[in-house]
C-alpha cells in the first residue's frame, strides 16, 4: 500500500516531468520528431519508478534496434537485469530490428491512435527483421505507457 502510494506519487512527479510533456507533445504533433528517443527515455524512467510497470520486464531479456530508413535515427533498447538501457547507436545480436520510414510511421506502428502493426507492414512503412513477439511485447508496453501518461490506464 505504502509502496503503491509512493509509486503513484513518483509517477505523478514523472508526469510533471519534461520528458512526459515532451512525449505527449510529440505524439500529438504532425512530425513526431524525436518520438523514438522520447518513448524509450520515458519508458526507462517509468520502469525505474513504477513497480507495476516494472513487472513487464521481470527476468526479461531483449535487444531491440530501431532505425529510420535514411539512418537519421538509430536507437537501441536493451532489456536486462530488470532494467532498460537506451543507446544512440546500433547494436548487434538483436532479437528484432525495426526499420521505419520516419518517426511518424514508427509512432503509428506502435501507438497512435491505436497499435497498427499489421497496417504499417502492409503499407510498407515499417519493416521488421526478427522475432515479432518481441515487438508485440514492446508495443504493449508502449501503449500502456501512453495510457498511463494520459491517465487512461
Amino acid at each position: 500500500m505504502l509502496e503503491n502510494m509512493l509509486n503513484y506519487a513518483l509517477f505523478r512527479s514523472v508526469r510533471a516531468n519534461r520528458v512526459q510533456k515532451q512525449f505527449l507533445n510529440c505524439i500529438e504533433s504532425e512530425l513526431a520528431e524525436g518520438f523514438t528517443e522520447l518513448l524509450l527515455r520515458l519508458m526507462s524512467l517509468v520502469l525505474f519508478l513504477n513497480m507495476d510497470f516494472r513487472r513487464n520486464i521481470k527476468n526479461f531479456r531483449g535487444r531491440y534496434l530501431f532505425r529510420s530508413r535514411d539512418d537519421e535515427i538509430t536507437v537501441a533498447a536493451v532489456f536486462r537485469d530488470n532494467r532498460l538501457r537506451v543507446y544512440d547507436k546500433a547494436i548487434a545480436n538483436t532479437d528484432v530490428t525495426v526499420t521505419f520510414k520516419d518517426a511518424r510511421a514508427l509512432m503509428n506502428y506502435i501507438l497512435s491512435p491505436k497499435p497498427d502493426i499489421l497496417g504499417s507492414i502492409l503499407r510498407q512503412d515499417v519493416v521488421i527483421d526478427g522475432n515479432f513477439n518481441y515487438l508485440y511485447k514492446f508495443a504493449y508496453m508502449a501503449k500502456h505507457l501512453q495510457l498511463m501518461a494520459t491517465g487512461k490506464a
Partner: protein
Amino acid sequence: MGAVTLQDIRLTEYNLENLPLLKQLREGLFNEKPKVCIERARYYTEYLRDMSSDREPAEIRYANAANYFLSKKAPLFFDDNLLAGTTTSKPFGAPVYPEWTGMTIWPELDTISTREKNPLILSKKEAEGLNFDIYPYWMERNILEYTRKKHNNPECMRIFERIVFFIASKAGCISHTVPDYRVALDKGVEYIIEQAASREIELKKDENLSEENRQKLEFYQAIQIAMQGVIAYAQNLGKKAAGLAAKEQDPFRKENFRKMAALCARVPAKPARTFREAVNCIWIVQVAIHAENINMAMSPGRLDQILYEYYKKDIDKGILTVKEAMELVGCLWLKLNDNANLVPETAEELFGGAGTVPAVTVGGVDENGEDAVNDLTYIMLRVTELLKTRDPSLNARYHYEKNAEEYRDRVAEVIVNTKAVPAIHNDVVDIKVLENQGTKLEHARDYAIIGCVELGVSGRSYDASSSIILNLVSGLELALNSGKRPVTGDEQIGPQTGDPSQFKSFVEFREAFENQLRWLMGKGIELNEYFGHTYQEILPSPLLSAFFEGPMEQGKDLISGGALYNSSGATHVGFADTVDSLNAIEKAVFIDKKCTFAELMKALEANFKDHEKLHAYLINKTPKYGTDDPIAVENSRSLIRFLYDFYQGHTNYRGGRYRPGYWTMTNHAGQGKLSRALPNGRKADKVFASGITPVSQAADDLTACLRAVGGLQSECIPSGEALNLKYPFVEGKEDIKRFGQAVEAYFRCGGLHIQFNIMSYEDLIDARNNPEKHPGLLVRVSGYSAYFNDLNEAMKDEIITRTAYDIRTGKAVPLRSASV
C-alpha cells in the same frame, strides 16, 4: 440411399414461433458480445511450462497437454441449449491459441475491449494473465518464431511477412479439415482407446524397437492419453449437469439437465444410441478437437448422412418427432456459433468479418453413387432458413443426374429466404476432380466441404486447404516492373524478367509473368514445407488424428502423413483482375497497338490521371473474363492450367500434392487496397474481384458468364473455387425454377461451386448507410457467410458493386455509380 418421407419437404408448419427454444437461444446469441477466453491458453501453458519438458516426445507431450486442459476445462451451461459442452469459458468466446495467432493481440490488450471494429471484451485480470504469465512462455515457441529461428529467418519468410505477395497460413492454423465423427458415434471413444492400446501392446512385444516403431508406440500412447481427456471432459459435464438438475426448480431445465447428465455419462465414451446422444456426441468431439486445434474451418461434414441412421431409428421407434429433431439440429447450429476468431484490429479492418467457418455439407450422392438426400437434409435446410446464422457454413451438394429437381429448387428457395445460404456444389464434377487426384471413387463420392469451398474426403483426407494464399496480382506487378512492386518501392523482390517496354510480343510478357509466378509459388511452397516440418517436430495432433481413417492403421499422426489422402491447398487472390489485365495488355499493346507498353506503364503510374481516353478504352474495349471473347477464354484457361501444372509437380511434407484453388475469403478486398492501378482499368486501391468471379460489371450476360467460368477445366481446380453471384430479386415459383435451372446449366458446363446474395444494389447501399436497420443481415463473402455490418468498408463496397443479374432476362442490372 436417400429416403425422403416428409410430406412437406419445406417443413412450413415449423417456424420460430412454434420452436420457442430456438427463438430464445438465437436471440441470446445475437445479444451476446464476444469475449476473449484465456482458459485453454492458461492450461496449455501451465502444463507445457511447468509440468513437462521440451525433451519429451512431442506426441506424448501434446496429448498430455490436451488431456490436462480437457480434464480441467470448466463444465459450463450458459443457456437452455439441449447440448452439453462449450468451446470456451464464455457464452460467446474467442479462444487464445498462443501457438498460432494468439500473440498478435498482445499490443491491444489494453484496447481490444473498446476498439472500433468488432471489439472483443477482455477483463483486466485476463489481460494481465496473458501479459505476465502466458505470452512470455511462447515468445520463442510459437510456430512462426520456432520456424524462423530454425531456418535463420529465410527469404521466403521475409517475403511472406510483407503480406502483399502471399500468406502462409500455417503460421496461423492448419485445422481446415473434415474429421470422421462416425467412429465416435458408432463405436465410441473407448473403442479408439482400446484400438490404440492393443496396438501399443503388440509393439511392446518387440524388445528391439526400431525408431519407426518407437514413434508408432508413442503415437498410440498419445491417442489414448488424448482420448481420456475427451472422456474426462464429458464426464465433468455430466456431473455438473446432474448437480444443476438437483438444484433446478424449473421443470424444463431440470429435465434438460437430467438428460444431459445421463447423456454425458454415455457419449462420446460409448456408442451413441439415440439421435440426441449422437448430436451431442458430435458437439463434444468438436469442442475437444478445438482443445488441440485452432477454431478455423474445422468442418463437421455430411451431418445429414452421419446422423441419418440415428434419426430414422428414433423416428421409427416413435421416440423422436420431426420438431424435436429440428430443435436438436438448431441447438447444434447455435452451438457452432459459440466461438469467434481472435483477430488483431488491423486484420479485422482489412480481412475481417469471418466466423470460424465450420462447414456442414448436405445432399448429393452416397458412396454407391445414389441419391443421398433424406429427411434430415430437409430438416437442416429448414433450420438454416429459420436461424439465419453466420455459422455453420452450409453447403448443399447437388448431383444433377441423381438428385431430384425438387431438392435443387428447395435449396434455391432457402438461398432466397436467407438471402445467402447455402452454397451449392456440383457433385458430378467434384467427384471427378477428386478421382483425378487419386481418390477412390466411393471415397470421392463421400466428399464434404472444408471451410469455404474446398473439397475434403470426409475423415480420410488431411488437406490443409488454406496453406498458401497467393496474390496473383503481385505476380503481374512484378512482371510489369521486372521483379519490383510499387507497394514495396525500389526493392528487388522477384527475378529480373526484363523491361516490358522492350517486349516484342505478348508471349514474351506472359513468360515474364509466369517466371514471376513460379518464383512466388516456389517461395510459398518452401515456407509451407518449413512450417509443416515445424508442426511435425513440436506440434503434432494426436487428438485430431484419432478421428481419421489412416493414422490408427499406420501408427502415424496426421501431420506426419497418417491420413489416407494428403494434400496442401494453395488458393489465389485477384484471378479475374489478373486475367483481364493480361487480356488488356495483349489487346491494347500487341493487337490493337492502342498504346505502347511504356505508355501503358505511364498511365498506370498516374492511376490513369490525364489518361482518361486510354482508361475508357481499357475498361470498355478490351476482352473480359466472364464473356465468350476468345482472348479472355484463352488467357483464363491457360493461367488455370499453368498454376495447376506447377503445383501438382510439388509434393508436400506429408507425401501429398499441392492443389490450387480460387476462393479469397476477404483477401481480395485487403489486397486490392494495397495494389496500384492495373492494365484492365482497375484504379489504385480498389478491391479485386472475389474468388473466381469475373470483375464487377465486366460480364453483362449471365449465360456467357456461367459458360466462361464453367469452362475453366475444373479438374485443374482441385482445391475448390468460389463463384459469387447476385440476384436483386427472386419472386415466386417461376423465379425459383429459373434459379435452379441456371445453377444446373452452370454445373453442366463444368462449374464446381456457386453462391448467391439475393439483394439489390439499393438494398446493400441502404444496409451500408443505415447499419442499425439491418442487424444480422447475412451475406456471402467469398466462400463463407458474414454479417454485413461486421465487414470492413472495402468488403462492403465489393459486395455492393458485384454484378447483379436479372433472373428473368439474364442481363446485368446496371449499377449507377453515383449511388455507390
